[in-house]
């Protein structure tokens, strides 16, 4: 629980300075509202309903029963198996991200309860290097599934990731195989896994556990896909259609079970678990 209180305070402080005081303008509808209104409204625009990112502790508070969350594996941090260096060394980058976010890595995972039901959960920390998946994220996600299998309880992952952690090369690619194999084992126990797709969910995370949920739920207007829109545009040299790769588009193409607004997410998940886990 160490990261937790700290990150909230930091995030709040940052928001105040970014918003030049108390006002915050919505990029989607242009309305200016008190920043406090956004915060109270779970980072959903009070005017137009656009869903801005909610941080991982915010999700813990929203979804899990009060004080039920026990963080697991908080001390796993990135190594640097390739000795990777672009303009900056990978060790410096991950250290800077730990400092900036207050999190050890791009995944906050643990055990909790939803309406008194045990769940094994993982929440991406998008602010940590774009929620990219390296060895630590892969390990934590695999352990979420393994704990669900051991404890005979459902697993839920809240995905928000740009994809693989390039700085870990093929180690990062192999996390897709590792996590998917863990899901195969969980399935054998008969426990459900629910995948929640937040904005954005792309790349190697999308192409592994994010799309392997027994049920797949998305937030409104989240960007979801395999390739990023820029890569696709460069490849086909065409403008992409309006709404392409957004949650509503995925529902229309049969790729997501349903969209749940943030305010309803907890009750929808609770109902799903009632149906699937009895």
């Amino acid at each position: 629980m160490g990261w937790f209180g700290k990150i909230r305070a930091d995030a709040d402080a940052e928001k105040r300075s970014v918003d030049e005081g108390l006002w915050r303008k919505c990029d989607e509808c242009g309305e200016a509202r008190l920043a406090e209104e956004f915060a109270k409204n779970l980072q959903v625009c009070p005017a137009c309903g656009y869903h801005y990112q909610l941080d991982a502790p915010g999700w813990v508070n929203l979804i899990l029963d009060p004080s039920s969350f026990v963080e697991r594996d908080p001390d796993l941090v990135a190594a640097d198996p390739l000795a990777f260096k672009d303009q900056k060394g990978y060790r410096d980058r991950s250290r800077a991200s730990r400092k900036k976010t207050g999190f050890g890595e791009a995944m906050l995972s643990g055990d909790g309860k939803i309406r008194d039901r045990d769940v094994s959960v993982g929440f991406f920390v998008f602010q940590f290097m774009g929620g990219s998946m390296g060895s630590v994220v892969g390990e934590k996600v695999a352990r979420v599934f393994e704990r669900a299998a051991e404890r005979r309880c459902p697993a839920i992952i809240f995905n928000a990731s740009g994809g693989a952690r390039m700085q870990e090369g093929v180690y990062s690619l192999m996390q897709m195989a590792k996590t998917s194999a863990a899901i195969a084992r969980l399935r054998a126990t008969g426990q459900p896994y629910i995948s929640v797709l937040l904005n954005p969910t792309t790349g190697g995370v999308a192409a592994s556990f994010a799309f392997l949920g027994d049920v797949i739920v998305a937030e409104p207007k989240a960007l979801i896909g395999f390739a990023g829109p820029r890569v696709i545009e460069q490849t086909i040299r065409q403008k992409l259609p309006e709404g392409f790769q957004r949650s509503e588009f995925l529902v229309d193409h049969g790729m997501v079970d349903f969209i749940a607004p943030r305010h309803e997410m907890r009750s929808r998940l609770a109902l799903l678990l009632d149906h699937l886990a009895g």
Partner: protein
Amino acid sequence: MQTQYLDFERPLVELEQQIDELKQVAGPGVLFAEEIGRLEERARKLQIEIFNDLDAWQKVQLSRHPNRPYMLDYVERLMTDFIELHGDRLHGEDRAIVAGLAKFGDRRVMVIGHQKGRNTKENLVRNFGMANPEGYRKARRLFQLADRFGLPILTLIDTPGAYPGIGAEERGQAEAIAQCLVTMAALKVPVIATVIGEGGSGGALALGVANRVLMLEYAIYSVISPEGCASILWKDQSKAAEAARQLRITAADLHRFGLVDAVIEEPAGGAHRDYEATARKVGAAIGGYLDSLSGMTPDELVGDRYDKFRAMGVFETAK
């Protein structure tokens, strides 16, 4: 097939052309024999010189060499009674992935791999080996078919990556790849994957969750193309060679990390210079590993695969 060559192969290829011309002039006699011998010796030394010290970027180019043997070149040389099976039974047939039943020695197997085209016309059909969701769904269907009939699965990996297009996204590229991963993880038959050229990211791994993963010496396996990595991290595509080095995508590096089980040595000058010898070595390696897996029970095979990928990853514990 039109012979093409890479920049760093040029001195060698030119010398060889010189030798050929001299041989033609000389005819069957002993004319120029000494000169020819001398040039051949020089060519041999030059080849060793060039290929002994290849950097990562040169290996990337070799892995993409237009004359490199492709999936079907191996099927033709290593297997008999091949019967291709088409379609995903859902939407379409994707010819960037080829799959079928075959005999490998006296074994019945399922063989599945990416297939690139040799020329523009072929690449219209093969899409440069970049599969759409239908390709992965065909692969998955046939993984399951092999599983039902107890057939060992041999995959041959050679793709720049899964195709990034509008249709691919509409039809669930991410889901199609993810389903391959979870399906492969649970297969109760031996699976051997061989990276024969480009192992491009998730589109490669979709055929790569195997009990044993082998790589040709000049094949590459990467989480992102060096060009893509360079443009994201260096904001400069021309840094691709540097990205290739940093990403550790060569067979030698990945073997050292324990991420691939074996490196299959290529003939002098690379696989494209001797298809027969390359295929023989690939066949011998696959055969050996199939033998070593043949004593395992179905559950042991699943467990073996699980343990292998479960152990992949390097991290630290903060104090």
